């Protein structure tokens, strides 16, 4: 085959990724060392000033804590609930094919629509959740669930679970399909209990899928902007502020591009550290094998 053709084939992808991903990434890091505003074209290099400002900014630290808290809680819960769902999908009972075919619906609809659905359901007067609560005699706890500092964060977690748990379930189920039945049959002869089956056969069998799903979703949840921005905007009283929302507010509400870029750069560093640790663990795992 003509060797040069290979380069022609990848040129469009390289150009698009170069202009719209690589350049913005490098330029974003560069802007983090300037006092650039979205409203002016003139700017100065200010060294590490933005990073110093960040170190003194309580909202930055709050957002960082919330981002890590949210990502950890969401991914752990998704993993556990995903395993329960996958176990259920494995049961061969009437109605299962239908259930399997509709359960991933929440994953494909736009996040903006999901937020609208849940905002509607959380309304104090007409919301489904509160209507149900009134009907079962819990009318005294009725409220706008995204507006209460005590419950807003939990409801953000709920949104993440609603979107992604079915994906986990289907993915783990697909991975379980590749485990040969003979392993379970052998275990049965040895008198293994269901818990031992799960721990020694199922879990190692879907280990790769678990690693892939957790990695994808740590990145996705940590970077996710629209769930929180559209549901609470970071409120009430910054209770649900996370880094992507804070970066967006700094750049498109305060127009402080330089400061926003420096927070974005910190996000990038955190994610890089996570990926490096992940790669090291994976490499080690290969040696052991």
């Amino acid at each position, binding site marked *: 085959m003509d060797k040069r*053709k290979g380069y022609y084939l990848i040129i469009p992808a390289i150009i698009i990724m170069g202009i719209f991903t690589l350049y913005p990434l490098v330029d974003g890091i560069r802007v983090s060392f300037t006092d650039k505003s979205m409203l002016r074209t003139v700017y100065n290099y200010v060294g590490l000033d933005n990073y110093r400002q960040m170190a003194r900014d309580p909202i930055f630290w709050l957002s960082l804590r919330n981002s890590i808290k949210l990502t950890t809680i969401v991914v752990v819960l998704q993993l556990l609930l995903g395993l329960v769902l996958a176990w*259920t999908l494995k049961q061969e009972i009437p109605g299962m094919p239908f259930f399997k075919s509709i359960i991933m619906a929440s994953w494909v609809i736009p996040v903006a629509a999901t937020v609208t659905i849940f905002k509607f359901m959380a309304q104090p007067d007409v919301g489904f959740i509160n209507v149900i609560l009134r009907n079962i005699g819990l009318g005294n706890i009725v409220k706008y669930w995204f507006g209460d500092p005590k419950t807003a964060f939990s409801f953000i977690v709920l949104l993440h679970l609603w979107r992604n748990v079915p994906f986990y379930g289907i993915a783990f189920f697909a991975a379980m399909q590749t485990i040969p039945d003979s392993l379970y049959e052998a275990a049965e002869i040895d008198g293994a209990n269901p818990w031992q089956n799960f721990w020694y056969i199922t879990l190692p069998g879907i280990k790769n899928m678990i690693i892939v799903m957790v990695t994808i979703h740590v990145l996705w949840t940590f970077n996710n902007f629209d769930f929180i921005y559209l549901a609470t905007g970071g409120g009430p009283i910054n209770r649900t502020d996370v*880094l992507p929302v804070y970066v967006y507010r700094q750049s498109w509400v305060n127009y402080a591009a330089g400061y926003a870029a420096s927070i974005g750069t910190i996000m990038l560093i955190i994610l890089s550290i996570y990926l490096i640790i992940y790669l090291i663990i994976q490499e080690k795992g290969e040696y052991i094998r």
Partner: protein
Amino acid sequence: MNLKLNKKQIKTRNTIIAYLVILLSLCFFILPMVWICYCSFRTQESIFTGKILAPLAGFTLNNYYRIFSVTDFPRYFLNSIKISSLVTIISLAVSIFGAYGLSRYTIKGKKPIIIGIFSAQMFPQVLLLIPLFLVIFSLNLMDKTIGIVLTQLILVLPFSMWMLKGYFDTIPIDLDNAAEIDGGNLLQRLIYVILPIAEPGVMVVAFYSFVVSWGDYLIVSVISQSQNTATLTLIISRLSASLLIRWGQVCAVATLTIIPTLILFALVQKRLIKGLTAGALKE
């Protein structure tokens, strides 16, 4: 004997637990969608009675009538269709050629390119968007469909390339060589030999590109400046953030926003589950 009875008991117990999980899952994952669809056919008064089951008089098609006749909904719907279709077509073209090139040819710096494409998925989009805004501005593409399309490509290209390269890698290169000996040029080889085999992967990439573009809020919120390019996600979030909310109409817009994605999902559902998991299982 004892063992057999035990097994049956376990089976019964598992069935009961499974149905319980199914019931809870349906209530949690599916009911909210049914609920907004149901409320899109109710009058404002009926919704505000705070009752779950409305009397027949509480039902109306007025919400749909109004969003089509009074608001600019049809225009936003067409904008969304236009943008998502273009993203899908361009993403398919670029990633099919690109992935084929990476899969079949010796290219200098192939490894860094693949790693670069893969890690592009982790870059914070809120960070990229600050310089991207200036790029789009200097290319004079602000508030233009093509500006939004080009920017949204960064959301879908990494996954598309990775997915298709994985698929192409599983197809034996002998097939390409045989087709080449028969005198097929590159385009013919792709269309008649490679793409039919990689069809599930291509479908997944097309579906993924459309759905991600359809659901994007972040990029549209920055690049769209007028109703010429505003999409459904932008409008639906504005509607539910206003002071006096007509919930019936919001529900109608939400229903029509999610229906196209659900129809596409129904079409590719089986292949999607296979395709999405194939990559991870290959390891």
